[in-house]
């Protein structure tokens, strides 16, 4: 498959998602206004955007830009439109994002007479977009977080700025709740012959952990990242406290050579199933049945979860797969993912050619703004055809830890439902 063909397979731009304001970009921007004709028509029906009211001021003096910035949170969210701003001397400024369907470099326009730059993006309700700015000066290009926006999203790759479109709110169950009893984290090391290394594991034991109880087990790939960037402990504490999910023991595992171990590695599957699992089930009061075992992961971690269950189909009852890197080819060999994806593509192609049930229940989530949305959508009917119970959820978000965090309530409460239905106070 050629790159052009691959690009043509991408999802269409979601209705209503568009950008306005670039100086030369096709389909949206005008040199005069920084908003498209369509946007202007809508603006006529609604109130004028703040940036346009500022632009209309005569004369436009730098002090006005100061006052403008003091009055507004940046990005400025007005209905479905979000105005991104940069203040400073530059030759060019670009909004850098990874929204599928939009050019990843969106130019900002300079407001005449000022050093204020802007671009307006139309983002559907509930969107959450991570971005940076690229500033070009004297032939140098610098990529920075938005200095006008204090909101940051963090990941192993660093931080980026984040825009909350209208309707997006940080779920309260992702934030520490003083009412929620805290579970505990315990570090351990499991020597692995399969992986030929000592494997660190962080165990989560729910509050009021009892030896006489029986707990389901959740094995989490990229465990350190889930704990650090997706607030996994807080989420578990809260969901258990709110009876949304069962009291659960979680094993957060850490990759060694991630791109090898998580790309359909027999050694990784053997480590989890023949080494880690028996050890945990011997040491802890775990259910010890498929319905009480789940594998979870995002991106390559989702591939690792699926591949492990594929290799051991009667062991795990549930899978929680977030933005899985399920790259495949329908014809040819050009998958566009580079060498690390080769084993993934071979595995996913093989699975798609002969799908089989690997668990009882599969929860799949993906962001509509990430390139993997097409791959994940394509996997859903494949999973369903095997007879597995599948729950598929999309969000207006990208390939990010916060997206994965925000989907945990739906996923975890589905694979290990809490006792809410039993409790009538």
């Amino acid at each position, binding site marked *: 498959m050629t790159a052009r063909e691959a690009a043509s397979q991408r999802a269409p731009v979601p209705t209503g998602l568009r950008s306005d304001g670039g100086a030369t970009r096709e389909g949206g921007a005008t040199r005069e206004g920084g908003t498209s004709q369509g946007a202007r028509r809508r603006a006529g029906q609604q109130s004028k955007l703040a940036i346009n009211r500022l632009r209309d001021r005569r004369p436009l003096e730098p002090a006005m830009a100061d006052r403008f910035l003091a009055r507004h949170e940046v990005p400025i969210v007005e209905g479905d439109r979000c105005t991104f701003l940069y203040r400073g001397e530059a030759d060019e400024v670009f909004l850098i994002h990874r929204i599928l369907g939009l050019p990843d470099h969106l130019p900002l326009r300079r407001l005449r007479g000022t050093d204020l730059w802007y671009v307006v993006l139309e983002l559907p309700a509930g969107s959450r977009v991570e971005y940076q700015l690229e500033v070009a000066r004297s032939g140098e290009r610098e990529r920075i977080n938005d200095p006008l926006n204090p909101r940051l999203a963090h990941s192993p790759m660093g931080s980026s700025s984040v825009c909350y479109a209208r309707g997006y709110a940080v779920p309260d169950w992702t934030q520490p709740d003083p009412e929620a009893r805290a579970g505990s984290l315990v570090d351990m090391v499991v020597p692995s012959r399969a992986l030929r290394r000592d494997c660190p594991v962080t165990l989560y034991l729910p509050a009021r952990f009892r030896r*006489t109880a*029986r707990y389901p087990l959740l094995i989490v790939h990229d465990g350190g990242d889930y704990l650090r960037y997706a607030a996994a402990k807080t989420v578990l504490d809260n969901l258990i406290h709110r009876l*949304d999910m069962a009291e659960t023991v979680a094993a957060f595992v850490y990759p060694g050579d991630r791109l090898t171990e998580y790309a359909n590695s027999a050694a990784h599957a053997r480590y989890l199933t023949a080494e880690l699992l028996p050890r945990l089930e011997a040491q802890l009061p775990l259910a010890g049945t498929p319905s009480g075992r789940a594998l979870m992961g995002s991106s390559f971690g989702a591939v690792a979860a699926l591949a492990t269950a594929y290799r051991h189909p009667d062991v795990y009852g549930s899978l929680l797969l977030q933005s899985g890197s399920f790259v495949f080819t329908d014809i040819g060999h050009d998958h566009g993912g580079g060498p690390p994806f080769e084993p993934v593509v071979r595995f996913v192609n093989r699975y798609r050619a002969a799908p089989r049930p690997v668990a009882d229940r599969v929860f799949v989530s993906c962001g509509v703004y990430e390139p993997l949305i097409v791959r994940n959508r394509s996997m859903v009917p494949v999973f369903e055809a095997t007879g597995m119970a599948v729950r598929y959820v999309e969000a207006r978000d990208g390939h990010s830890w916060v997206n994965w965090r925000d989907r945990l309530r739906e996923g975890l*409460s589905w694979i290990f439902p809490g*006792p809410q239905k039993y*409790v*009538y106070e």
Partner: protein
Amino acid sequence: MRVILLGPQRRPTVDAVIRSLGLAGAGPGGLPGSVATITAGWQEREADDGELSGLLGGRDTNLGLYRRWLDTQDRDPGYAAAERRMQGEFAELQDIYLLRLDHALRAVYALQRRSGDQLRTEAIAAAVAAVRELDTAHLRRVNDVRGEFFAELRPHDRPVIAGHRAAVAGILGEAAALVIAGGHVGVLADVLHLFNVAAALSRPAPGAEAPVVAWSAGAMALTDRIVLFGDLSPQGPGHAEVYGSGLSVLRGLVLLPHARARMLLDDTPRMAVFAQRFGPGRCVLLEGGTRIELDRDSRCPPGTRVLTGDGRVTALEAAA
């Protein structure tokens, strides 16, 4: 047995009910003995019953059934292991039942959405009948498993359990009334069965039984068919499911605490399916402020809010 069902006690009415029974304080006409309470549905918070105790005038004795169950877990490991196996079997049974129920109810709802007249109506009735059959078979299977478990484990012959049963029977034998609070209905039903509360409540002389006042899960645990429901879960509306039998002191009633907060009562086609599944049993709403005094045949008084076969909420007399 005299049974009074209450709605959720966020704004307590149990104190007024106890007063109306002539049980509050030591005033003239008050019956002797203390009020036995069961707060096992609160699990680890079982002993945090100070507020309830205050409402009962401080003359209550908590049966401590959850504590007794924990004690049994510790001191009778053989029983504890067998009980865990039974719970595992229950979970598996429930899982399979839910899988079948999902398909069966989807068929009902799909038929409801389909246009048509007579054929469609007949098909819906047949589809609901299939769901009823599934519910009935599941309840029978769950009760069989529990029956076999007790027959095999013989709890009355196990010293730890027998000791607790005797203690519970002793307190209930002296009690002027029994109050059962809400909480986890599964835990409540389990400990009520384990410590044989139904037998302990019965008295030789007819009419001499202590009245029972129960709300929410406590009320559900008195019935012969506990139905779990919740249309507002993180995944959206779930299927109401038969859980098992409670003490079966009340028969032919499906009790629905917090119905307004937990059910899509405005979705009449959905509610109609709910009511038809469990008919001729009465689906009785227990909202805040509700007080229902049942007669000896578990019949509700006029004014009781019930779910009708066509999915409406109405007073019992209007539903007849």
